């Protein structure tokens, strides 16, 4: 989501300079010329940051800030004061008003960008967000008053490089978030006094955390509670007892983590799809999400052969067949030669379907490679 900056200054020149400073960035700048307009715009636009002048007609910056801080919906919007008044007393007064930072006029545009960039994420236009990989470090906040649950999640995610931060109360959770915003939060709905919903609301009203994926943890049978969580806008529900493989998949989807490297690689000029031994619905989904893109990327970079390695698949069902058919279809569309390696379970399952009963599987990567280099177009 594009960040939104509200500049409140009676000088049109300053408002234009602010807009000019952020023009190269992928963000929106909205304007107001005094405190009254500023409050109105803040309520209407819910900006991620306000750049506020001090001396203005009708309502000055100090009064607007006081009203902003008294408004439950707006008080968490960070404010940077941009003022020509820099005396010691003024600076102390500004700090007491609860501003995030202040900048003294005259100012360099770079200084303004730097200060704003410390509060909100600024990205240059035309660049895309860095896509995190599944094996990148993440901070996972788990809010549950039952230490056993936190330990269970920690143990379940031990094969990742993710760090689990367990907190038992709302206050402890928000204290951690004030210091560092986690990448994802898991909040128990069984916290006392609807604490799970309190945490969620506090996160959603904070500009720093309003886009944070927050999952509700709930016992499988607490359907009403889960429905309330869904209506409140939680990112998703994680049911107890927790299936940590399913949890990993949910986190990966919520953060749009790149998991393709787990399944796809280019080896000896050939695109290789490695289907893991435990072919679960989550794995099927992850492969499915990346399949067409990875094959298209490979073709685009000059690769014209593919090997689908299903030799490790221990248990095969119709989902494996679907994957094979899907690969076949995409390869046909993109004129890619392909060969498959299969396990006994896959071979057996293939015999059950008219479309796949005659599929031929190679015994090894080398054999598949030789078959591909023999020049025959794939026929499965």
């Amino acid at each position, binding site marked *: 989501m594009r960040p939104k900056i509200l500049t409140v200054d009676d000088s049109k020149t300053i408002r234009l300079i602010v807009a000019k400073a952020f023009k190269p960035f992928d963000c929106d700048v909205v304007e107001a010329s005094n405190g009254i307009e500023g409050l109105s715009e803040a309520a209407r636009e819910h900006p991620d940051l306000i750049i506020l002048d001090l*001396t203005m007609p009708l309502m000055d910056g100090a009064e607007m800030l006081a009203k902003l801080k008294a408004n439950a919906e707006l008080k968490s919007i960070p404010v940077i004061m941009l*003022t020509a008044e820099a005396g010691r007393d003024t600076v102390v007064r500004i700090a007491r008003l609860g501003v995030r930072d202040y900048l003294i006029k005259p100012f360099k545009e770079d200084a303004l960008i730097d200060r704003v960039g410390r509060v909100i994420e600024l990205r240059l236009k035309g660049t895309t967000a860095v896509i995190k990989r599944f094996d990148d470090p993440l901070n996972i906040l788990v809010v549950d008053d039952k230490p056993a649950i936190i330990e269970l999640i920690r143990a379940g995610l031990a094969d990742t490089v993710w760090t689990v931060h367990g907190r038992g109360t709302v206050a402890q959770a928000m204290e951690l978030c004030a210091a560092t915003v986690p990448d994802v939060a898991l909040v128990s709905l069984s916290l006392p006094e609807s604490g799970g919903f309190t945490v969620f609301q506090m996160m959603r009203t904070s500009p720093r955390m309003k886009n944070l994926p927050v999952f509700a943890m709930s016992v499988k049978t607490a359907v009403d509670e889960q429905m309330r969580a869904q209506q409140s806008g939680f990112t998703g529900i994680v049911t107890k007892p927790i299936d940590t493989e399913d949890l990993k998949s949910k986190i990966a989807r919520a953060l749009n983590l790149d998991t393709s490297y787990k399944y796809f690689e280019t080896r000896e000029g050939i695109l290789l799809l490695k289907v893991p031994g435990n072919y679960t619905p989550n794995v099927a989904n992850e492969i499915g999400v990346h399949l067409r893109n990875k094959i298209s990327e490979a073709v685009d970079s000059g690769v014209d052969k593919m090997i689908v390695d299903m030799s490790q698949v221990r248990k095969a069902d119709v989902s494996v067949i679907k994957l094979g058919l899907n690969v076949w279809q995409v390869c046909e569309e993109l004129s890619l030669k392909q060969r498959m390696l299969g396990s006994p379970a896959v071979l057996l399952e293939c015999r059950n379907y008219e479309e796949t009963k005659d599929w031929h599987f190679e015994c090894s990567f080398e054999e598949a490679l030789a078959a591909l280099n023999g020049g025959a177009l794939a026929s499965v």
Partner: protein
Amino acid sequence: MLDDLDQLVAAAISAVFGTMLNVPVLREAPGAPITNGEAHVAGSVGFIGAISGVVFVYSSASFAQRVTRGLLGMKDAEPAIEMVNDAVGEITNMVVGNIKSRLSDRGMDCMLTIPSIVRGSHFTIEPTTSTERRVCLFRCEGQQVVVEVLLRQTRTANSFAK
């Protein structure tokens, strides 16, 4: 009233023009501002408190246009009069804000007024009785920039003044 007022003004105008426009400002020898009949734009901001007064920052209208273009990153387009007025007002506000901050650090607190603009080719600024007047002349990119300060001490500012 303030022995180093000229230095305060010079530091403020250098900071504002240097930071916002990236151009140096040089001090000129004391004298009367050039009045050649050319249209001028003057920004004024008042300050009220332990020490009160008003500061005027003015230059030729053509230089004010150049300043506006520089501030807003306009290349060749001619800025509208309202835009020039606003830019001159803001430059004046920054200059006075800078001076005010230094005075505040010496215990001479005051509040600033909203900037206002005067345009014309034959105006003079005259102090009233018991008001001190200082005129500081500067040169920036070959053009004269004038800062006139009218000061009136409203309480025991002398004890703080340098």
